[in-house]
């Protein structure tokens, strides 16, 4: 129920005691649900932190399966030393490893919290579930419905995207709404794409800059979910519709849906990143990626808007590559091209 985790338990208890019949009914139900989830979560969390204390530092992947239920985290099907054998499990294991490696080797970040937190993924979540998400503590992947979408563990950038939501949570903690929400989404797409580019050894010029390539079945007219190179061109299909992403501020979409169109307007900062990376050239994770990482982890407030992010990335570029450097100019030019500054 919409408020079962928002109302503190002591207030719920008071409602059970003093409320009218309807209120009591609702409060009892809320307590029951939140208590059972909380207890399960607590038991699991203590097990996880115990494991972390015992495990050697570094990459620690844990793969679970919900066996098509919605219980999290589900049952263990693989660990760092005994990788899963199931296809979705193997994909999550590989994608999580590649994401850990990008953050560690390029940005010297030790996992999501920079303290070696174990990376927990649950695969086979729910039935025919067309989604993947970060729940604040772990990654969750659906199998897809099979008609339009395949399993969400398949594209490596989806995993990079979800894990980056965790990194954002531990750093800038961008509000998941309107422009700060679109930035939150964009940072996930940026590092998701960089995970893919690094694992394929592609330069900015060679990369496809697509997000979720391979997620559609062959019955969908589309290459991927989003294109950082050409926002708005990733798919155009009679069943699922057309890619709505704008590539600059003239196409900014004002909507109440999707927390203010966070998955739509992210096209604008996505394109700014693409323009920067291509202008600098070489491996994007070593140039534009470093600038964006520095910005995400040290420069942004939760409420940051596009312009805040633009000025902060220019500042980061100056600090890393020097004031007046070609990198700094590339960043500034990119944000100008997309109409943010």
């Amino acid at each position, binding site marked *: *129920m*919409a*408020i*079962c*985790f*928002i109302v503190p338990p002591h207030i719920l208890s008071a409602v059970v005691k003093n409320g009218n019949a*309807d209120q009591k*009914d*609702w409060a009892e*139900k809320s307590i029951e*649900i939140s208590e059972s989830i909380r207890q399960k979560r607590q038991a699991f969390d203590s097990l996880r932190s115990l494991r972390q204390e015992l495990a050697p530092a570094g990459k620690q992947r844990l793969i679970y399966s919900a066996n098509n239920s*919605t219980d999290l985290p589900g049952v263990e099907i693989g660990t760092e030393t005994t990788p899963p054998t199931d296809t979705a499990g193997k994909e999550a294991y590989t994608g999580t490893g590649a994401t850990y490696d990008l953050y560690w080797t390029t940005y010297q970040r030790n996992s999501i919290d920079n303290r070696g937190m174990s990376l927990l993924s649950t695969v086979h979540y729910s*039935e025919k579930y*067309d*989604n*993947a*998400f*970060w*729940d*604040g503590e772990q990654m969750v992947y659906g199998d897809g419905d099979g008609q339009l*979408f395949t399993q*969400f563990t398949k594209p490596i950038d*989806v995993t990079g*995207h*979800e894990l980056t*939501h965790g990194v*954002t949570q531990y750093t800038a903690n961008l*509000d*998941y*709404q309107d422009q700060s*929400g679109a930035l*939150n*989404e964009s940072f*996930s797409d940026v590092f998701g794409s960089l995970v893919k580019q690094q694992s394929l050894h592609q330069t900015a010029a060679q990369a496809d800059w697509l997000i*979720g390539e391979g*997620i559609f079945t062959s019955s969908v007219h589309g290459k991927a*979910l*989003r294109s950082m190179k050409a926002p708005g061109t990733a798919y155009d299909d009679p069943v*699922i*519709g057309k890619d*709505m992403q704008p590539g600059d501020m003239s196409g900014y979409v004002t909507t109440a*849906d*999707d*927390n203010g169109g*966070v*998955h*739509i307007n992210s096209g604008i900062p996505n394109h700014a990143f693409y323009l920067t990376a291509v202008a600098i050239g070489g491996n994007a994770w070593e140039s534009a990626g470093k600038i964006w990482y520095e910005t995400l982890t040290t420069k942004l407030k939760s409420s940051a808007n596009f312009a805040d992010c633009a000025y902060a990335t220019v500042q980061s570029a100056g600090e890393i590559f020097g004031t007046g450097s070609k990198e700094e100019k590339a960043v500034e030019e990119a944000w100008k091209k997309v109409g943010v500054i």
Partner: protein
Amino acid sequence: MLITLTRTGGFTGIPYAKTIDTTKIDPEKAKGVEEVLVSSHFSKVKPFDSAQGKNSNPDAFTYSISVEREGEIQERTIFENDLDPELRKLISYLQKL
């Protein structure tokens, strides 16, 4: 009864919507809709209050269900992480119709 399910958000960002007219489907299934509506306590879900906030779980879905009967419309918005098993049953029943 007209019942509309919409889903927004999610990693794909692709919205989903479906409207079911229970007078135009198999009566057994229409009865099923009534049953899941009752068992989910749909009418007791608190109406969405925008001040109450946003869907703060990145990439999680937001569902809206509207039920229209005899000219009266009841609409509820529920975040995915706030779904209880009965509400999940209601949503999956409507999706499967």
